[in-house]
């Protein structure tokens, strides 16, 4: 069985693992690293539930081989924040009721982070566009959009506080 050594920084931690080239990044994160926050919601690259950030850009981890992440940085939802120290995006989804079953939520959060990293003051249309690759069957998206806008405001006010 052919394996390759890959070196990936996952949520700030360097990981060095031998993997088969055909191993999908989503399976690597979930089954090899035990980071089950990344969800697999379809077989057809449609749903976006598996969205992670690779070098800060949002990508569908089900549509990458783990070997393609060799030499790169990956952020999963576990890297966003922890229960005692939530990221403002995670706070926003709590404050504005941005989830019901929660299955799409990690993907939504990371796609949102990519948006807010690039555009700290998005309009509602900007948010909907940035999340256009993430499907949700529960919420009808309205509260997801509110959650992201809440997080954007929180991040902006934190930035203002720091700059004083």
């Amino acid at each position, binding site marked *: 069985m052919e394996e390759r050594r890959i070196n990936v920084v996952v949520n700030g931690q360097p990981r060095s693992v031998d993997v088969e080239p055909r191993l999908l990044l989503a399976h690597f994160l979930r089954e090899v690293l035990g980071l089950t926050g990344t969800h697999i919601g379809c077989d057809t690259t449609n749903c976006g539930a598996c969205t992670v950030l690779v070098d800060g850009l949002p990508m569908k981890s089900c549509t990458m081989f783990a070997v*393609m992440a060799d030499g790169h940085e990956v952020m999963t939802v576990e890297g966003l924040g922890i229960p005692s120290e939530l990221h403002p995006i995670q706070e926003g989804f709590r404050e504005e009721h941005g989830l019901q079953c929660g299955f799409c939520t990690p993907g939504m959060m990371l796609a949102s982070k990519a948006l807010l990293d690039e555009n700290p003051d998005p309009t509602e249309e900007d948010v909907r566009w940035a999340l256009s*690759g993430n499907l949700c069957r529960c919420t009808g998206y309205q509260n997801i959009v509110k959650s992201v806008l809440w997080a954007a405001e929180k991040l902006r006010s934190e930035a203002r506080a720091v700059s004083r």
Partner: protein
Amino acid sequence: MYPSRFHYEAPRSLDEAFGVLQAYGDEAKVLAGGQSLIPLIKLRFSAPAVIVDINNIPGLDYHDEDTDGSLDIGALCRHRTLERSPLLRSRHPTMSRCAPLIADPMVRSRGTLVGSLCHADPQGDWASVMLALGGEIIARSARGERAIPVSQFVIGPFQNSLQVGEIAVRARVPAPRGTRSGTYLKLERRVGDFATVGVAVALETSGATINRAGIALTGVGSNNIQCTAAEQALAGKTLNPSTIEQAAALAAEAAQPKSDVRGSAEYKRHIVYTFVARALGNRQAMAA
């Protein structure tokens, strides 16, 4: 494991890649963004014995204009880069209108224009744009380079004319004869869907006179369709209700739509007519 087993190579230079491709012949498949190829491999519709990942080859992620006004897009230039490109927004309106409509933000982070042309999906948007612009693919191998017009590069559904040992290293849009205007209109059932109908329109004008017209269609044939009759009807003319109507009708005639879940053939043909007329009739929307 969804995909079947394959041998994986990740060359760090084009020369290394050519060597690998020559060694494995038609058992090898080049991988760039993978946003079309990997879904096929996961479903085992495609099961290449060897994957040659070119993402580690430097010098392929660029797009820029030459002094002669032609535009080069490197093999690793991602849709996302083109979507955000000030150069495209200011000088290449057909391309800049198309880029945001490719799939969704995550696919655009990885997928490439050149890869899209190589994959030759009949539902691919970029091929229509490149046909309308008279674009070409530059293929390189250990033996040298050759330029292949897109109309001769895509030879059937999911079939391109690359030979064993060749890699498409860039796409090229020739310099315009005049001022560029144009747009890409895409009807889709929802964001990220394939086009029900896509229409690429590209004009090169001197004043009001059209020097060159390009019109090409997505999703209404076994491959992207170039509407040569409509293009020829516009060449040398100006845009007025009569020439617009004629071009739209000729484009609709050139379409070969099939009835399916996205709509009936008649509906799709009507959309072709509507989109061509709408594009040509809206000078503001077409301006760079």
